[in-house]
């Protein structure tokens, strides 16, 4: 099923896709699926969706983990490590370079304009992704009120959010949500 050149093929492909994943790695997931499931048959559809669910459930860098599971399937531990690097390496280099440029032009006249234009848009997108996630975790009035309570507590108190997460994981564990 796998040939000696497969690890390189997968790594190169992931590096390419991560370099164009504007808006976050999930935007290129369909391309990854096509490549590893349909084109090469390294992973079945069932396995691919298992990787996805599992990566979402584990704290930490979930898309990097998901690609590591794919790499592990193709080439064991070296494949997992290579896939992880291919997923975060190229974007990290680009983040570093662009942040350096941003700081260098701190005094430039266009920068406050670009900032005043861009920042509200990205804040709107943060709130939107929170809303989309409320929708994704919605199971009824109980889960919705938990989300609303989290917003209110976070804005009105200085309580450590970790307690809210722990408390709700426990409530959820008893099947109450």
């Amino acid at each position, binding site marked *: 099923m796998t040939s000696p050149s497969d690890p390189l093929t997968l790594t190169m492909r992931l590096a390419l896709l991560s370099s164009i994943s504007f808006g976050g790695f999930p935007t290129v997931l369909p391309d990854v699926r096509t490549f590893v499931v349909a084109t090469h048959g390294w992973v079945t559809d069932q396995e691919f969706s298992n990787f996805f669910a599992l990566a979402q459930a584990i704290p930490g860098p979930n898309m990097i983990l998901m690609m590591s599971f794919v790499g592990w399937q193709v080439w064991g531990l070296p494949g997992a490590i290579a896939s992880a690097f291919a997923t975060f390496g190229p*974007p990290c280099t680009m983040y570093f370079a662009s942040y350096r440029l941003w700081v260098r032009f701190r005094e430039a006249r266009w920068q406050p304009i670009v900032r005043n234009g861009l920042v509200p848009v990205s804040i709107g997108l943060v709130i939107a992704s929170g809303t989309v996630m409320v929708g*994704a975790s919605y199971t009824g009035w109980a889960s919705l009120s938990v989300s609303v309570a989290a917003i209110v507590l976070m804005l009105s108190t200085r309580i450590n959010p970790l307690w809210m997460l722990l408390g709700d994981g426990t409530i959820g564990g008893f099947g109450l949500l």
Partner: protein
Amino acid sequence: MAELTDEGQPSGQVPLSELFIALLKVSLYGIGGGGLVWARRIAVEQQRWISEHDFADIVSLCQFMPGPNIVGIATCIGTRLRGVIGAAAAVAGFLVIPWTIGFTFGVLYLQHAHNPALQNILGGVSAVAAGLLIAAGIRMLLPHRTRPAAIFFAASAFALMAFAKLPLLMVLLAVAPISIAVAGFQRVSLR
């Protein structure tokens, strides 16, 4: 703890080990995509390494770059504090230990059957994590509340993404140029 000077540059050098541990915390606490919430809480509120404005800058820069946004935030915080070596320490802190734990757990888990109790726990956690993300966004918007255009474009991006369900790239391409143009126009008319 480094205090911010007038230029917004940290006056003392943040030790690389502190940077590593701070981003390790962001990574471990950020269950279900809450990394942004923790990055802001730790870097802005607790350590006072960067200002609210600088953090909003970093977040918007990372929205426009490819790749995992939160890794970008780690890269930028590290770059801001200690340059390239800081970026390496921050990204290593964010990735190495969580990846090792997550990968080990995941590989073990994949060899076993699906567990419904685990699924329920995750449901509760994700409902809170989603609420926290919204709250973090509202906090970031507060410094801009005096600018009606800022509120308008934040609301537009929000609505296009959350309700019209357009892909992110499309929302950015549709809203960002107009928002920048309005910001430029307002600046010109102020003069």
